[in-house]
């Protein structure tokens, strides 16, 4: 390869993968094994002591998983990555590495409902405290930062409302206060938005969605931007202090700009265990190779569908930042010029009742709790993904009772619109 940077599509196919040196297998093999043989006791000790690169046990790392990790790190422009069994597993490991009991973090109130639950309820048991902010009101972010605030968390493109967030503005606030910005880039994927280029320090994904892209495998990933100084403030002892788990090693000093990803692996994944299976890593890797093609088609189809549905008699409103008159269109143009993603929401003039009839009349659309499949998907968030939220939280998250969410697939757009049309007739 020349010394010029490979393009996104080249990375999507090649990064992290090499021919198998013993068999010549060119596709990445599925290393369906729990464990790896040591050369001798010294080699084993080196691996356990973080003194050599290599594999020990599939709860901690696996060669198929590793190719996926390097691939996503390259696509996001990060220094390293760690794959996990789900997006939620990735979030748990990120916060475990950042937070001590009693610490808090700021999170946007426009998030996937499951993340709102994880932060607001599950994390309380660890004595980690979320403070919600309105991502369109930067004062609500900064006014809540205090000396126990350890991070800011946003989605680049919020689920389900489909609104882009001003990543750079959040990064500036975070860095002014010496804390990292964490961005969930699931809905946009690195094909549309690369948050690290806009100042994010860490990126997380549910690989379950567009990156895997075929609705067949759960997965998550943490990408280390390599940008944050974990030692300066003394507030991130997992990285800056000697670790008793490893005889006193200091991870930031030893691993430099990819220490965060290593810490998530050797202090988080190792001890909590949310590992990705090699088979899922393989399926997601196969999906990644076509991410640029699929994502562009998702965006093109969705813009056509949203433009069509907006003019339908029975439709009260549409929220899709790809539409020129959408409130969020300027931010979309700035952050995601190739397209506005595949997920959007709309409401029917007939409200909740009409929405139920519409969902039940669809033929091609699948009614299920996922996004980012090749197939077109539909859901009513208030009764499903955002069910545990209070009515106020639902409205704030863009998931009020009249809201229907679509995730547009890569079928022929005429068939997608045809199905929506016949279902709207029955609503």
């Amino acid at each position, binding site marked *: 390869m020349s*010394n010029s940077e490979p393009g996104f599509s080249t990375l999507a196919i*090649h990064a992290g993968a*090499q*021919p198998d040196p013993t068999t010549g297998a060119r596709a990445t093999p599925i290393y369906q094994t729990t464990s790896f043989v040591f050369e001798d006791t010294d080699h084993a000790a*080196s691996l356990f002591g973080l*003194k*050599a*690169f290599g594999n020990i046990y599939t709860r901690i790392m696996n060669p198929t*998983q590793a190719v996926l990790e390097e691939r996503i790190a390259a696509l996001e422009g990060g220094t390293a*990555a760690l794959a996990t069994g789900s997006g939620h597993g990735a979030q748990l490991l990120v916060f475990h590495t950042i937070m001590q009991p009693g610490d808090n973090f700021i999170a946007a109130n426009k998030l996937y409902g499951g993340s709102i639950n994880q932060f607001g309820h599950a994390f309380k048991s660890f004595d980690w405290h979320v403070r919600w902010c309105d991502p369109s009101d930067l004062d609500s972010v900064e006014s809540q930062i205090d000396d126990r605030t350890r991070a800011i968390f946003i989605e680049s493109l919020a689920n389900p409302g489909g609104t882009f967030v001003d990543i750079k503005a959040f990064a500036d606030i975070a860095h002014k206060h010496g804390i990292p910005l964490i961005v969930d880039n699931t809905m946009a994927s690195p094909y549309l938005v690369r948050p690290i280029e806009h100042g994010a320090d860490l990126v997380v994904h549910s690989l379950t969605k567009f990156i895997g892209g075929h609705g067949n495998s759960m997965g998550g990933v943490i990408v280390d931007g390599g940008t944050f100084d974990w030692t300066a403030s003394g507030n991130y002892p997992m990285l800056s202090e000697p670790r008793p788990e490893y005889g006193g090693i200091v991870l930031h000093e030893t691993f430099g700009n990819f220490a965060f990803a290593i810490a998530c692996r050797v202090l988080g994944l190792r001890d909590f265990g949310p590992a990705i299976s090699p088979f899922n890593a393989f399926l997601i890797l196969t999906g990644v190779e076509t991410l640029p093609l699929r994502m562009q088609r998702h965006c093109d189809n969705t813009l056509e569908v949203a433009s069509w549905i907006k003019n339908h008699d029975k439709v009260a409103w549409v929220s899709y930042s790809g539409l020129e008159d959408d409130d969020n269109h300027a931010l979309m143009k700035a952050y995601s010029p190739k397209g506005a993603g595949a997920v959007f929401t709309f409401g029917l003039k007939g409200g909740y009742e009409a929405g139920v009839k519409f969902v039940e009349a669809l033929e091609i659309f699948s009614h299920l709790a996922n996004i980012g499949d090749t197939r077109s998907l539909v859901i009513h968030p208030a009764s499903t993904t955002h069910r545990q939220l209070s009515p106020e939280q639902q409205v704030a998250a863009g998931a009020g009772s009249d809201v229907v969410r679509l995730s547009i697939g890569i079928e022929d757009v005429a068939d997608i619109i045809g199905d929506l049309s016949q279902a709207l007739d029955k609503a």
Partner: protein
Amino acid sequence: MNHDRYPDSYIANILHSVKSIAMIGASAKDVRPSYIAMKYLLAKGYEVIPVNPGQAGKEILGQLVYAKLSDIPKPVDMVDVFRGSDALPSIVDDVLALDPRPQVLWAQLTVRNDAAAEKAEAAGLKVVMNRCPKIEYGRHSGEIGWNGVNSRIISARKPVLQRGYQALGIRARPQ
């Protein structure tokens, strides 16, 4: 040389051509970065000679420790520095006083001093700063990818197998 970003071929050539390395600031403590790098480089077949006045006369990883560079009784190809950036100018003076001179001066992660580097380069040395040879070896062999690190190298060439399980050698040919 632009010390913000080194061409891959520059680093690969150094890792290929160097055989013996004097490691200034080598630690006897097995969790220190210098110890970890030394252990790795020894496993990759390099001769590593530790330099540390506090440990002089003892052994680290089976290698005799010298108090200062000029005490090493044979020529070395590279000097790898595990000391602060401030120490680099006087280390460069010590390196330039060696006869024969090493070909490469390498300064570890976070260690950088452009004036010292310029002086060494003017005398014909190749200089690498703010990098770790273990990490660079891992990038150029592909080993570092096993731990999810972005090597920033893509290649459809056969990885170079070394002796034993899970051991790869430097892939790129020197140019």
